[in-house]
Structures are given as structure tokens and as C-alpha cells.
């Protein structure tokens, strides 16, 4: 089935399908209730030697009826504290820390609906075509039963007002009120820094989702 190297013979993407109610089996089997792999991917991703401010991100993911979902897979992707992604396409000058992949995976809790990620706060990342730096942010991707194709959004940090005001992505969102759906307030609890990032799949406070 060789195709010639000319013309517009692109291959169409494989269609998405819902991750279903049992996504945990494949991706977070411990949450499904069993232990199978020696090495598990998880939501606590910054080892003790990784530079940066330790933070906890937590929140709930609400459906259009205001119900906190209890079966959603949450993945995040972020730069390190120097604003550099652990990926060959990132040739920014910031320091690369190979021990920090920058990717987390967890699920909303079956009982409480809360998801929790423990990581470090990323630095700002240089923006598209060097025009403006992007404020520190974490890329989110959600998949679950009832979500036909993964939903992409970003979390920004509530204590970065000045950087957020200049952020080239937040600023393309026409309705300034909707930008707030991407900004997580910062608080302190038991000596830990906590950012609360609730996501609304639908409804009055629907979160901004991106088609990138």
C-alpha cells in the first residue's frame, strides 16, 4: 500500500472515541481497584531534586447539570520552573531538567469528584513567534465517558495577574469574563500551596476549551 511522494495524499486521522467509564483500567489501574504494572504513571510528578515551588492543583469537573463528575481522566503537560518543556522541539535557553517529564495523569475521585496533582509551578514560556511570553500555565487534557473527543484547556495562576494580563492566549478570548474560567486562585493549606482549578464542561460558567 505504498503511496507516491507527491500530491495531497495525507492520511486522515483515526477518529476519536470516548474513553468510557472504565478508562481507569488501562491508564490508572490502581483507581480501577487492581495492581498490575510495576511502574505506574501518576499525578505526583516532581521528585525531591526538581527545582521549583511545590504546588498542589485540585478541583472538580462539573457537567451541565452542575454535578461533579467522578470518572474523568485528567492529564497535564507543563514546562519546568525555568519555562522549558522536556521535549526536543523546545530549544529555549532555560535549563532543561531531564528528571522532570512535566506530565501528570490522574482521575477525579469516585467518591468526592476531586482530582489532585502535585507538581512544581512552571515558569513563563516564550510565545508563538517570539511575540510575547506566555504567562505560566499548565496544559490540561480531559477524557471520559460522555466526552467523545479529548478536551484541551489551560490553567493559569491566580497570583500572576500582571503576566496573565499580557498573555497572548488569554487575550484572544473575546469575552474577558470567560478568561477567568482558566485562572486558578491560590491559597495556602497546612503549609502547602494549593491552586483550585474547577472545570465546567457546560453551563453558565463553561470553561474555555481550545482547538489547537
Amino acid at each position, binding site marked *: 500500500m*505504498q503511496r507516491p511522494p507527491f500530491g495531497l495524499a495525507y492520511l486522515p486521522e483515526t477518529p476519536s472515541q*470516548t474513553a468510557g467509564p*472504565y478508562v481507569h483500567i488501562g491508564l490508572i489501574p490502581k483507581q480501577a*481497584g487492581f495492581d498490575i504494572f510495576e511502574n505506574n504513571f501518576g499525578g505526583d510528578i516532581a521528585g525531591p531534586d526538581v527545582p521549583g515551588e511545590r504546588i498542589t492543583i485540585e478541583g472538580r469537573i462539573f457537567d451541565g447539570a452542575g454535578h461533579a463528575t467522578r470518572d474523568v481522566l485528567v492529564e497535564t503537560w507543563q514546562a519546568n520552573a525555568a519555562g522549558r518543556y522536556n521535549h526536543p522541539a523546545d530549544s529555549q535557553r532555560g535549563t532543561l531538567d531531564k528528571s522532570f517529564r512535566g506530565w501528570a495523569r490522574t482521575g477525579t475521585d469516585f467518591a468526592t469528584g476531586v482530582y489532585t496533582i502535585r507538581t512544581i509551578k512552571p515558569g513563563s514560556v516564550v510565545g508563538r513567534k517570539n511575540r510575547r511570553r506566555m504567562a505560566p500555565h499548565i496544559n490540561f487534557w480531559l477524557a471520559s465517558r460522555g466526552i467523545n473527543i479529548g478536551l484541551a484547556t489551560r490553567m493559569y495562576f491566580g497570583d500572576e495577574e500582571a503576566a496573565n494580563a499580557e498573555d497572548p492566549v488569554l487575550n484572544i478570548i473575546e469575552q474577558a469574563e470567560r478568561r477567568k474560567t482558566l485562572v486558578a486562585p491560590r491559597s495556602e493549606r497546612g503549609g502547602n500551596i494549593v491552586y483550585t482549578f474547577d472545570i465546567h464542561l*457546560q453551563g453558565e460558567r463553561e470553561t474555555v476549551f481550545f482547538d489547537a
Partner: protein
Amino acid sequence: MRKASAVKGSSFKGSQIGSSKVGPSKPVPSKARRAKANKASLSEAPGVKVAAPFSFRGAGSEWPQLDRDGQKGRMARRSGETGRSMPDAEFHQRDRGIHPPAHTPVYKTSVLRSPRIPLWSLQNSLSEVTGPTFSPDELGPLDNDLLRNYAHDGEPIGEQIIVHGYVLDGNGTPLAGTLVEVWQANAGGRYRHRNDTYIAPIDPNFGGCGRMITDERGYYFFRTVKPGAYPFRNYVNSWRPAHIHFSVFGTAFVQRLITQMYFEGDPLIPHDSIIATVPDKTAAERLIARLDLNAALPLECLAYRFDIVLRGSRQTLFENKLQGS
């Protein structure tokens, strides 16, 4: 993988696909042997004949991408001042017409979980064109052998099959070293999951999940039992056709994809509400794995072929150097 002591029999080597039964008399492999077996299992299974993957470079991939006003030179100089920041590769716009929309009343759960405001279109920055990478060292040697990775005192019940294929991007370029994760119900249609209460029994020797990293040709394969169909709460009498869930990464977070693979000839496919969410019939057909008799092992097991295509990208040219190629 499960602790080695819990797995009877030798570890899954490609050359042993279906060629011997799991037997308690076989020695537990040493760590070194398991590591070797893992390496072997990450390459093509000998005896599994496969067609060559697409190997052409996509149209446009070798052309310099100019800035909107054609100012490549100025951009390059400017980027030299702060470190290059323009992505090496920008991804082709996702063709939403081949994917299910968020809101599909035929699949009732989607109704309250679908955003109603249009997605904001976002041109690629580094945050989009980068994504997590994984190393084969992170996986166990049995992670791609669902017949053995949860076996306690025997083999899982059911028809043993091989599932294999290539992961490619829209340019036909093989995606090497990408993580593929799979999960499924057992042969009776029951998931090993605390929320699954279907009447079919749990299989004590079947976990129902596996994972692998594609080789340099983008090839993956795993061994499992064919999953059973099962009912679910959508309409009064809704059944899912037999299917295997796939999660794939690619090289960038915008390529992230979760999908489901179905089996050629399954009579439930035309009745399924989940496949029906895909608006394009020819796109939906690409989710159906084909029976691949050439890859079937005589007197052992059948094989199914399922190729996965993630979004393609175009390369950018900077300072007379083609990046990312």
C-alpha cells in the same frame, strides 16, 4: 507487570507468540532474561508478517514555512536573540468532520458533558507542539502480553488473538517510540473495574490492560483474548460490540488520542451508539480492525490489524537548516 513470581511460565517473547502454552513447569525468567525478552517484545513478532508502513514524506513537509508576510529572514534573526522559539513543526488543523462532535444525543451521556460554546482556535505554540515522551525502560517485559501480565494460576479464558499495526502521522511518517496503551473487557464482556457490575464473571487470570512503545517503524503488537460484547445503559437494550480501547500520544500533546478498535464482521457494529457518534461513515470504518490471516499463527491464534493515524505536521525551515527532520 505483575511480580515475576506471580507469573507462571516464561515471559512473552515475540518468537513465542502462541507457540507454547503457559505452563507451571517453566522456570521464572531472570531479570536479565526478562529485560532481553522485553527488548525482543518491543520489536516485531517473528512469524508475524506485516506490510511495510507508509514511508513517504508528506506534501509540504520539505518546504520552508514563511511568516505571514514572508519574512523568514527577519524572524530567524529575531529568534536568534532569545533562543529559537518558533515550533519546529506546526500541526495540521484537526479535521473535526471525521471526529464525533462533543454533543451526540445518540450517546446520551455526551449531552451533559459537551461544551456548548465553540472551542477557541489556538495557533500552535511550544505548549501545543511538545508533549511527554516515554522510554521502553519504564515498561515491564509482560506489559504488552495480556495473556500473562495478570496470570496467577493459568491462562485467561477466551479466544487468544494478536492485535498489531502501525502508528503513523498524517504525512505517513511512522511514529517511533510512542506509547500505546490498551484496555478491554474479558472474554465474557466484564471489566476488572470496581464500577462494573455486569453478570459475567471476573476472570482471575485476566487484568485487561497492556501497554507498549512503538519500534522505529511505528509498529506495535500485543497478545490478548478477544473481548466479549456487553450491555450498557444507553437505550433499554444497548450493547457494545467487542472492542479494545486505545490511548496514543504521538510527539505532541495536540496529537493525544483515545479511541476504540472494533472487530471485522461483528454484527453489533451497526447498532452501536458509540460508533454512531462518528459522523463520517468511512472514518468510522477505519476503527474496525481487519482479520489478518497472514499474521495469524497456524494452529494457534488469529490476528487483527489496526493502524492508527495521528495528526500530521509541517516542518519549518530556519537559518538554512531543516529542523526536526
